[in-house]
């Protein structure tokens, strides 16, 4: 962990995690805001306009995170 993940404090908002996904400028930025919301930014090119932005509640973020981490099981 840690390698390739850039952590940036956003004063008054929360913490931002920038994760590079190989070359070509593909990357995701996740802002964990202090009110529990997660902002997910997806970039497909190296430009500064995100391809997609999602605002997830804590519950939704946990669900998505569990699926991504392979720890999601139905009952």
């Amino acid at each position, binding site marked *: 962990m840690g390698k390739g993940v850039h952590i940036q404090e956003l004063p008054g908002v929360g913490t*931002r995690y920038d994760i590079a996904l190989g*070359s070509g400028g593909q990357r995701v930025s996740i802002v964990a805001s202090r009110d529990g919301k997660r902002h997910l930014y997806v*970039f497909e090119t190296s430009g*500064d306009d995100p391809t997609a932005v999602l605002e997830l509640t804590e519950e939704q973020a946990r669900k998505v995170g569990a699926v991504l981490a392979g720890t999601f099981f139905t009952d």
Partner: protein
Amino acid sequence: MHANLIGLGALILAAGLLARLGRRFRLPTVPFFMLAGILLGPFTPGPTLFEHPEDLDMLALLGLVLLLFHLGVEFPVEQVLGSGKRLFAAAGAYIGINIGAGLGLGFALGWGTSEAFVIAGAVGISSSAIATKLLIELRRLANAETPLILGIIVIEDLFLALYLALLTPILSGADSAGELALRIGISFGYLVLLFAIARWGARLIGKVIDSNEDELLAVLMVGLVVLVAGLSAEVGVSDAIGALMIGLVVARTSVKERAERLVLPLRDVFAAIFFVAFGMSIDVGAIGSVAVPVLIAVGITVLTNVTAGLITARLFGLNQRGAANVGLTVLGRGEFSLILATLALSAGLDERIGPFIALYVLILAVLAPILAANSRMLARFLPDRLLHDRWRYVREETISTACTHMDRIHITETDTDVCPQCVESGDTWVQLRMCLTCGEVGCCNDSVNKHADAHFADTGHPIIRSLQDGDGWEYCYADGTLIREPAGSNRS
């Protein structure tokens, strides 16, 4: 017991509905709460819900106190103190230019010295709530300049405390310079005392209000806050500072998170009443007489903000987009301007201040989101030399997230001052680039052989820097961006 529940309920509901309408167009809420107050107040033709707006005084004051208390509780002290000198320089420049211009405008209006100080604060201090919401709505949380914008507005909040400490004695109408100095001394002494309590007495305060039950914590907390605010006003320091400082104290206790969560809905409701009550005190008829000064003030604010954005961009090596975004995102004025207006009116200053600040906040409320969303247009007009004398290749570059490959930087200095491969083949080069992963030096893209590019293609080492004297830029091939240090990092 007499209470106008019908009037109060209808007023709050109308304010909420109007603000919701504004949100459809992504406009900030605070000015619309105020607008509801203006429209339904006793000075405007049409329905009047409250014959005696002063019946709302207690609730509105509670709103003011809770607003500042919450600001104190959520103030990110550690992040601000750890954010480095350059951020303070940028914030200092922002505050200095804006307050300075505000003072100039205030004195030029000739309404009086106290009035000038109130106007300076009202046009000089931006609204953190509006700026933060804008960054989220414009999807700019991942931008490189965003941590700077947030850092600046947070330092501005801190400045607000100092400014209130200075302003309250001025507004109190001291008779002589000596008395004024004494009152300012008391004011700042009180501030230091509360800082000391925040530093060393937080545990004790935490014990006083702590309870496992949310119900009791909320009750104890509100009691403590209102009491401290009242005591502060009694000492001659404003209730607003008292509330802000006790917020900083509570932020250092173990109940911080719960306190923040519990006070939020209370703050939202009572602060809305505060904004509505301020609106009700505005005489619409007087707005026409202040229209010209307000338009001048709006023009000055836009100008000073863009200037401050340029200074920040120069300090941090941002490009045109970054400069424009910094300048135009912090343009919104809201809660703090209205707080200062209320202080001024309750101190019996020139009555034109009310309509002046009301109209000013309303215009910027509509203007700020529009300008911030279209910052690209401004970026086109900013010349390179304003940002960096020696930087080239800047305008075309995107400025996005801070580069994610900075952990691949292992070496930053070299003694090599030739392109070794070109020397071997007998070619010449234009400029030199250095790989920051392995230290290899190669020639630039304007040279025949483009050895730096070739090195990246061979090895995948992502980051180069220019070896040209005075250039000082770094570029990441993988992200395709110039690299800027993130705010608060110690890398230099």
